[in-house]
């Protein structure tokens, strides 16, 4: 049967590299395993230890802070930009390209650029700009108070482009007649934005929100290259803790327990979004 034959390579590939690893991860999370010695079943000891692991909870907390502050700000800017770019303007395609550029760039490169922007003292662009208004200099990435906000600023900057594009795609479906009718009724720009655009974009907003949260929970490259989770765990996140436990401490069982928790969190969010967005997936 050709149907089977044509799907078989992809099917085998996903079974080996996604299906089997997930099952193995769930089993491994109930073991003690250091790669050298054979894994030893230890019941729920990894999960019990996780519950009391201060750093794990801090990492989870940082993920939540990044989502709570970074995502809404980024979404709001993206929405305003999308509405502005949804009309004929000179150079609009250039604006779109410029705003979207951070999304196609490797996060490692992004981290290097911001490492330089946040450089301590006056060589750092951030300090130079703030010195014009008489502020600073700040130690952006080495201060426990400023490091997390500095990381969040990068995620906002990097995340605006894709959110704007999804909003732009959604705006294509908004009928122009609604706005014309509102104009006849004497509505101004602000009223049109809040009374027509925002309600009509509600499904898109939900889609952007959930996918942004899912993406935010998987921030790794940025943390690894910008702060290494520091200073003093001030910017560590779940994915970084998984990396440290698995590939620096070689506590594979403990690390997979964290990854199982991450999997559950993201699974709930994804299923929620599938349920509400519905139509766009699967048909």
């Amino acid at each position: 049967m050709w149907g089977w034959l044509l799907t078989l390579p992809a099917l085998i590939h996903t079974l080996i590299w996604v299906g089997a690893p997930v099952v193995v991860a769930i089993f491994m999370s109930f073991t003690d395993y250091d790669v050298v010695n054979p894994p030893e079943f230890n019941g729920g000891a990894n999960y019990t230890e996780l519950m009391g692991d201060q750093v794990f909870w801090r990492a989870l907390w940082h993920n939540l802070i990044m989502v709570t502050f970074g995502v809404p700000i980024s979404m709001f800017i993206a929405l305003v930009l999308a509405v502005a770019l949804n009309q004929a303007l000179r150079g609009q395609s250039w604006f779109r390209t410029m705003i979207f550029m951070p999304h196609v760039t490797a996060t490692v490169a992004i981290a290097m650029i911001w490492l330089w922007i946040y450089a301590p003292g006056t060589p750092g662009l951030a300090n130079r700009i703030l010195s014009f208004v008489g502020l600073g200099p700040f130690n952006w990435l080495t201060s426990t108070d400023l490091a997390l906000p500095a990381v969040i600023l990068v995620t906002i900057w990097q995340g605006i482009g894709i959110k704007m594009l999804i909003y732009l795609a959604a705006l294509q479906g908004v009928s122009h007649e609604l706005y014309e009718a509102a104009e006849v009724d004497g509505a101004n720009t602000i009223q049109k934005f809040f009374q027509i655009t925002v309600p009509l974009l509600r499904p898109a907003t939900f889609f952007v929100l959930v996918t942004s949260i899912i993406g935010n929970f998987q921030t790794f490259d940025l943390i690894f290259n910008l702060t290494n989770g520091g200073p003093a765990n001030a910017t560590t996140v779940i994915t970084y803790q998984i990396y440290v436990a698995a590939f620096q401490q070689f506590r594979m069982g403990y690390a997979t327990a964290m990854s199982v928790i991450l999997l559950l969190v993201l699974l709930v969010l994804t299923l929620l979004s599938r349920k509400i967005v519905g139509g766009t997936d699967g048909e």
Partner: protein
Amino acid sequence: MANETNTPDIEDVTRTHVPGDPADDSIQQVRSSTPDHAVKDVSQRRRRRISRTILWVILAAISAAMVLPFLWMFFTAVRSQDELGQPNPPFFPRSWHFENFGRAIDAAPFHIYARNSFIIGIVNVFTTLLFGASAGYALAKLRFKAAPWIFGWFLATMMIPFYATVIPSFLLVRFMPLFGGNDIFGQGGQGWIDSWWALLVPGMVGAFSIFLLRQFYVTTPTELIEAARIDGLSEPRIWLEIMTPLVKPGLLTVGLLSFEGGWNNFLWPLLVTRDESLRVIQVGLSVFRQESNTQWDLLMAGTTLSALPMIVLFIIFQRYFVNGFVNSGIK
């Protein structure tokens, strides 16, 4: 565009999804045609023009802020040693030192890193297109009993984050039987660690590519397949010679996204390679930074090398990228 048939051609289907397309004038045409019935007096029109101008200035300012970090990267990469040493160097470099890129390559073999990443990207593109298109076509057009189940499986794998599978995947690579000195039980050697296998095989195809390509095949006319069958063409030839040419925009979209995935990948190559000759550009950049903390001009030159190929590809193929990104949501 003429659409006499009730099945729109692919070009059109993708066009409607493309907000970031500079060539797509259809959007502008709709927007710029001001409604005839809206009779406006001069003062209102003037107010409109002023608010337009303000909007334009704000947009230009935000766009400039978005590219400012990239400009800063590039200007640092080509700055003179002299300017770098100054406490307050000018924003625009006074002289351009492109030899800094050569100095960066002397300090770390970025050309080898880039070559490795390029190979991974290209192999990703070809394997993803081959296996993704075959599976996507089968799921879209061949009505076999297991199709909904297999499609459901692919959708399910899309929900699983990489961080949930990375540890077992790493162990699978490490204990790959009969490779890298391993015996049949995967013991004794290093398996696929420090080999092209580890860099290429796990990224061969992904569920998202299958999903996207299936969507493209769904929009193609099934009558063509039936006609080809009557003409006696074999099933593989129908797939490759009749149907696949119809989804070229889809192939381009998926191909570009696969290349991007290969070029920008960091964690997986970091885990499975130690050997410098197999190091990819993103890992090379990260390691270079750890080894030479204060040479900002060289670090920014390396960063430019790592960022520029994707930026150039994006500017050239913007509409295909955008099409894929809007479908995939957030990376």
